[in-house]
């Protein structure tokens, strides 16, 4: 069941809006405060990766970023898709490399695959109740 679909420009200023929207979804599903903050952080990191890494500097203006949220029987599935150059290691990344392992730690499962438009699709699945061992 689709809960959310936002298309936005891959720009830093947009990420706060995505967090606000996904918080609304999580609150409607009755997520605990901890789960809610995990969903917000993971979604934020995935969007930031798309903004920072998916596009060459000059091409971000024409780029896209789509955030979807859907409810599975016992899970919230958030998908962040860009239309960029595809995931690859970048030795000159100024980041610390915390993003992907952080998303993996926060989500029940993380899928990374090529998006329909050739960019990257990051699909994160979250439980609706906290796991017994946090």
């Amino acid at each position, binding site marked *: 069941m689709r809960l959310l679909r936002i298309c936005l420009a891959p720009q*830093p*200023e947009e*990420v*706060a809006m995505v*967090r*606000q929207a996904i918080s609304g979804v999580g609150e409607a599903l009755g997520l605990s*405060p*901890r789960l809610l*903050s*995990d969903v*917000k*952080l993971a979604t*934020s*990191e995935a969007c*930031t990766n798309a*903004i*920072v890494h998916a596009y060459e500097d000059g091409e971000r203006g024409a780029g896209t970023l789509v955030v979807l949220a859907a409810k599975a029987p016992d899970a919230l599935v958030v998908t962040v898709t860009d239309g960029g150059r595809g995931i690859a290691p970048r030795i000159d990344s*100024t*980041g*610390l490399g*915390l*993003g992907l392992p*952080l998303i993996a*730690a*926060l989500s029940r499962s993380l899928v990374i695959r090529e998006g329909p438009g050739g960019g990257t699709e990051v699909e994160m699945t979250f439980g609706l109740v906290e796991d017994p061992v946090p």
Partner: protein
Amino acid sequence: MHGSQIEAFVEDGDGVVILRGEHDIATTPDLRAALGRVRTGSDRILIDLGACEFLDSSVLGVLIGELRHARERAGVLIILLPRDHASPVRRTLELTGLLDVFDVRESVI
């Protein structure tokens, strides 16, 4: 509150930077600039996250950069955390192992 605010000043020789609201890739340039302003002339930098409601890995990157700066000039960096132990900010630092890396205290904000 989903806005974000950065306050930076020098007090008793300490450089103090206070983050309020949500901080991410959009606010790291301001954060870097604020740290640059208070860094000159202060051996001790306090970053107060007591009223910070969210931070992401790009903010953590700035904090770690600041820690390196501090170590290079034998200075001190102190991170003040929200008193609420369930705060998202605390959890983010815990998940990334940074609670053990930074000199962490409790904020009074």
